[in-house]
């Protein structure tokens, strides 16, 4: 028997700047502000070599522990590295952590949850018990245990966050699927003979993904904070990589002499957190009032 391949009827909309402007105009203010903030950080990371002449890793011992000045806006640390440069380069690492640690579990969790909610039966039962078991362990404990087994490092951190983080998306997607699969448009798709995967991913998932997207924005912030915390414990990003949490950790021994080493990178974390929260708020507003087109 051969499996028939059926092309998905996706219609490519021609890019129309006017229409795009209308869509953006319909967005809530906090979404616009949040996106602008996040873009600022991303651009700062991308253009770090242009924005600052200093190397984020190699220090200049002549200028150790200099307070903020025009030369060094965030001061220098104990080995004479420019903290501002480290924060800019750190944006690369932290945004990468935010995205990978959030959206890999997101895709996996939503897909599994959607399938489980749709097909039900033993697959659903088994998967949800696995979710229960995973959730029963304290989040940070699982991550530390996995990192203790695999060893510290950014890749192992992704594995650990993934192992603990997919469950919430599975739950969210499954719960929404249980509602959606009763909807008549899903029955109509069944009556047209569409196969399960088409119904799940083309007809149901676009309608259930909203709550997961909103949640993922707060997860994004939490994952950056988690990465900082793990760096602080010494099992996350390894020095001398300029991860924000690691920079804060480096500065804690010098807090009384050089407050800027820990404090100013801390603001970068807060700034990113606020940006992601604003985006999450804005998106949830859009999703709750389904009359506004999202895209």
């Amino acid at each position, binding site marked *: 028997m051969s499996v028939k391949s059926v*092309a998905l009827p996706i219609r490519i909309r021609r890019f129309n700047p006017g229409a795009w402007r209308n869509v953006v105009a319909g967005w809530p203010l906090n979404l616009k502000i949040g996106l602008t903030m996040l873009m600022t950080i991303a651009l700062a990371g991308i253009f770090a070599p242009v924005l600052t002449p200093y190397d984020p890793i190699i220090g200049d011992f002549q200028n150790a522990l200099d307070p903020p000045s025009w030369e060094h806006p965030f001061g220098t640390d104990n080995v004479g590295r420019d903290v501002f440069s480290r924060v800019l380069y750190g944006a690369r690492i932290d945004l990468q952590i935010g995205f990978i640690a959030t959206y890999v579990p997101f895709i996996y969790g939503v897909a599994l949850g959607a399938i489980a909610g749709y097909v039900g039966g033993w697959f659903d039962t088994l998967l949800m018990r696995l979710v229960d078991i995973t959730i029963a362990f304290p989040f940070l404990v699982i991550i530390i245990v996995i990192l203790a087994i695999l060893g510290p490092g950014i890749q192992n951190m992704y594995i650990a966050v993934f192992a603990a983080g997919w469950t919430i998306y599975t739950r969210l997607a499954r719960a929404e699927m249980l509602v959606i699969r009763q909807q*008549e448009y899903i029955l*109509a798709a069944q009556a*047209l003979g569409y196969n399960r995967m088409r119904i799940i991913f083309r*007809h149901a998932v676009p*309608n259930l993904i909203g709550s997961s997207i909103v949640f993922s924005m707060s997860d994004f912030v939490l994952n950056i904070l988690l990465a900082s915390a793990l760096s602080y414990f010494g099992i996350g990003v390894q020095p001398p990589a300029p991860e924000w949490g690691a920079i804060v950790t480096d500065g804690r021994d010098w807090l009384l002499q050089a407050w800027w080493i820990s404090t100013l990178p801390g603001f970068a974390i807060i700034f990113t957190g606020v940006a992601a929260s604003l985006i999450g708020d804005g998106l949830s507003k859009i999703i709750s009032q389904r009359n506004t087109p999202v895209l």
Partner: protein
Amino acid sequence: MSDIVLEVKDLSKAFEMPRSLFDALRGQPTRKLVGVDQVSFKIERHETLGLVGESGCGKTTLGRCILRLQQPTGGSILFEGQDITRASERDLQPVRRRMQVVFQDPYSSLNPRMTVRQMIVEALRFHKICSRAEEDAYLERLLKTVGLNIDAADKFPRAFSGGQRQRIGLARALAVQPAFLVADEPVSALDVSIQAQVLNLLTDLRDEFGLTMLFIAHELSIVRHVSTRVAVMYLGQIVETGTTDEVFENAQHPYTEGLLRALPRPEPKRRDRKIALEGDIPSPMNVPKGCRFHTRCPIAQEICRTKTPPLRQLSPTHHVLCHLRPTPDWNPAILA
């Protein structure tokens, strides 16, 4: 020559209620909810069978079993001579194209994240109805037949009113050129002023495309307008069936009589203000013994509480499930 499109034999659908672990360990049987109980009927080509009954009597379940959206627990369904009761989803695909459905709720029957074009083109490509080059023309023609403009194609469902949404749902069903249509209360969620429009559209298209139809409704006046034959359902069983005239002019089952009496009549002088039907439909988890209707029947007698009623034939088309009807003095000549 009779050309039977759909034949349903002893079709049953019972839902098992979830039982607690404690009950399961005590060996208590699972409780069953009767959806459809041993229903049999045939629909000939170009016929419209109207299926009426109160909400909860199993009309929708019956329709969904026929469409195989729910798996029946007993009996069989023959569609154009082919037994589809246990056909796999793969074997069903050609059948799905021949058999389509229009749903009740215009607000949940269209995917909010797909444009009209996406919905219909997906169906066309999936069932290979026409070549890609012909799609636009096909879509335009299809929308026109349901009374919509081609401008509607690239809009999302939220841009439409309830009546327009039902038209889109109808277009989606007709896109694959079905022979048989299950219309599951297609107008009961609409404003009365819109109901007539959609209903007329439905009957026009039925005649134009030669559709055979199972029309599910709870409003008798609508069923009378649309159907060639009528089946009255009560608690999962068909209690009376006949041509539209037989059922409306010569109702035999007390339940049908009750439903008919509940119809508003434009005759203020005639004051038979007997209460049409008393009480509520009994729980489908605990179906009454004997005749299922005896708890509400105005003429019930001892036999009705104990013995299951027989299916009596009044004419080749008219059947009634009752101990007491037709009455012994009933004379078939009055029909003529």
